């Protein structure tokens, strides 16, 4: 069936099967690989997208249930000059190693800054509590977000 998303700011029609998750629809139908197919169990956060303002796990949502939703992926965030400071801060603080988990973290961070432009370190940690990094880059993420917040609020 056909669903319409407001995807990264653009109305997008998608032909999906009922058994597609949102993650699978993004990857297989649109070639968007930012939301990763990782644990596929709702555990790791690599598939995080922002749906109707909330950071959620695209692997745990049926695509058909997103008809009419607003969805942002890491690709959309990266394309906006407004969020360049966040990406820059991630690079500056080297908040990644293999990088597989990074898009999920960045999307969670963006959702946090949307609702809370001046987060504390604890609030950063809490917002990222659903993202797992096997490489152990955790301490760098809060630093990057706090740094980005400083730049963005300048």
């Amino acid at each position, binding site marked *: 069936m056909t669903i319409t998303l407001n995807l990264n700011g653009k109305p997008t029609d998608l032909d999906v099967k*009922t*058994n*597609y998750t949102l993650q699978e629809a993004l990857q297989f139908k649109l070639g968007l690989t930012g939301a990763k197919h990782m644990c596929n169990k*709702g555990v790791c*956060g690599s598939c995080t997208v922002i749906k109707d303002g909330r950071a*959620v796990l695209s692997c745990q949502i049926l695509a058909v*249930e997103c008809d009419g939703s607003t969805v942002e992926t890491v690709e959309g965030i990266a394309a906006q000059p407004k969020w360049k400071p966040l990406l820059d801060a991630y690079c500056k603080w080297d908040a990644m190693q293999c990088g597989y988990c990074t898009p999920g973290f960045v999307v969670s961070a963006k959702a946090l800054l949307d609702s809370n432009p001046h987060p504390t370190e604890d609030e950063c940690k809490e917002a990222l*509590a659903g993202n797992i990094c096997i490489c152990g880059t955790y301490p760098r993420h809060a630093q990057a977000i706090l740094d980005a917040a400083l730049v963005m609020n300048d």
Partner: protein
Amino acid sequence: MLRSFEHKNAKSVNEAAGVLELGNAALIAGGTDLLGTLKDNILPDYPGTIVNIKTIPGLEYIKEENGTLKIGALTKLADIAASPTVQRKYTALAQAAKAVATPHLRDMGTIGGNIAQLPRCWYFRKSDNRFPCLRKGGTECFAATGENRYHSILGGWKTETSQCTAACPAGTDIPKYLSQIRAGDMDGAAETIMKVNPMPMLTSRVCAHFCQQECNRCQKDEGVQSGATERVVGDYILANADKFYKAPAKETGKTIAIIGAGPAGMSAAFYLRKAGNKVVIYDTKPEAGGMLRYAIPAYRLPKDLVAKFASLLEKMGIEFKLGAKIGDEIKPSDLEKNYDAVLYATGAWKRPVLGFSGEDLAIFGLDFLVEVKNWMDGKVGQEVVVMGGGNVAMDVAVTAKRLGAKKVKLTCLETRDKMPASGEEVARAIEEGIEIDPGWGLSQVVSENGKIVGLEVKRCLSTVDASGRFNPQYDENDKKVLTGENILLATGQGIDLSYLDEKYQIQLNRGRIVTDEDSNETSRPGVFGAGDVVNGPATVIGSVASGHKSANGISRYLGVDYFSYANASNKEYVFFDTEGTKNPIGLKLKELDAAARAVDKEDSMTPELSEGVTEAKRCLNCACYAVNPSDTAPALIALDAKIVTNHRTLAAEELFDVNEPSNTVLGKDEIITEIQIPQPPAGSKSAFTKLALRKSIDFPVVNVAVLVGVEKPRIALNAIAPKPYRSLKAEAVLAGKTIDEATATAAGEAAVADIQPLAATKYKAQIAKTLLKRTLLGTTE
């Protein structure tokens, strides 16, 4: 990738319920639990349709109305955690919602889905239904003796009647009486058995023990030897008979005639007398017991035990009229006139006509057993042939051997693996040197000069036809003669109803009395049937059950109290012995040496009580030992919440259950619509604490919710039992007390007072205790 399904966006609760009602459908809310179960395909059935309830308007809200907090079932956990009202007045719930999983999952997961989520047991969750356990329609719990460190410390919960109990024709609650034996409560064990079987000292000796064959342990090592444990309890009952066979305290004034003093008649008599009726048992034989007394050899069932049991019934006030000829002196119509109800339990004693040449020369096996005394002193001959493959045939063959026959050959239509006799009995026959030569049918008795020299048999090719009906086929060209001086036939028994004279109209079918499925009432009001006369030749325990059924039917007919045909209840926590279950070897009865065995001495000995206890400890008490994993459940129970569905309103505590596979009592088309919480009184406080391996993502190892500062404090813990656990003991400790180090510690101790951890869950008790103490002390800060 998910397997395909149809997807429906429901517009109303009714519409969603309608789809669920059709079956093969699952409801999706946030989907965080459901999609996981579908992706891994953990359940035996995959839903054909998924009904989305997120499209139903008006199910997502948090509001206060008339002192009650109302939360729509679709409200996201994140919103509950963030609500200032919930945080301030219903603190435990806000804290519990905040403790679930991760921020992302809380932004997706709903409160309705949180309390309705499925178990997290790893066997249960293993992909592709690799472990089809009790919660999925199987019979076994893999966690009970497997990996169970996140499982229960308060025992298991049965989803249905245990396998063993279901296999018992009388429905004996085997795991229950075994747990009573373990607890040293022999009177309790006796009562549990006697609820459905008044003569365990007899049945334990003669039963085919279907329960043992069906025991789940059989898949690992040896089944629990419930025949042996029943015998221990049976002999305990005999030794303490005064306790168990009391005359009733009150008489009903009703009179019942029972025709037939076999297991069915005596079972019915016991239950009817217990309820206060006057019971008279008639039997043509000089002694009571029927097949127990006359047919089953004394080496299996000593006759004095049967006599003792009958005397106990007499002590209860049951009258035996033995040597009575129904049909001759006493007419069925007279019985009907003189008694309020009549029960026919006359068994199956008749020699069937088989129709082969020389049939008259052969001896009916049952008569042989009844008249065993006449066959002593070598009269049985040197060589004997027995025809038949059932337990009676084994009895006949072994008896013939013990009477002195040098050679006993047993043959039957069936092949070895299809012989109807129980494994135990076949093994006994072989041990005694019976030559079993299966797969032959009767051809003719061979005689020379009027003297039997053998039995000619013909090859049996098959015993049943394509439709499963008994219809043996033979190879007439494949014949042989089994030599022997006596031919004993144990190929079934017929039912003799000649005592019912022609004028007496009662519905029969193929020579059996027809009775009602539930009551055992015949076509004549007030006249009942029980045992073999109704069901055809079957088992002793089957007759006991049938007699009990009739007793209930008669009681209902007479409008008097009765002892319900009790089935095991599944509504309590059950336990097993984590050490004792490791014992792979079942209890074997001690037996006389082969040389010492005779026709009139019991072969086996009743085990010691201590041996019975050891065997009882081998029972796994098959139940689910998983825990309820929900974080919000205990908070809702502590806050005394109500769960509103499209059908009813339940107290939070009543919502939870242990089903296949769900954790709730919700019916197939039942949908949670709202949670209601009464505003806790001023001055009260509620709190929730959770311990998980990692603070984020992980399910609780233990969690605790409390409501204190109220007249009746409420304490609930989760992840320690198959259902969220409300600790009434801890509540009692705190009632009327202020919370301090001492009372908080005492409450913690009380909360774990009833635990019986699994092998790997002991540590949880310490956590539960400490967590409760800390949570309580936290409310004083």
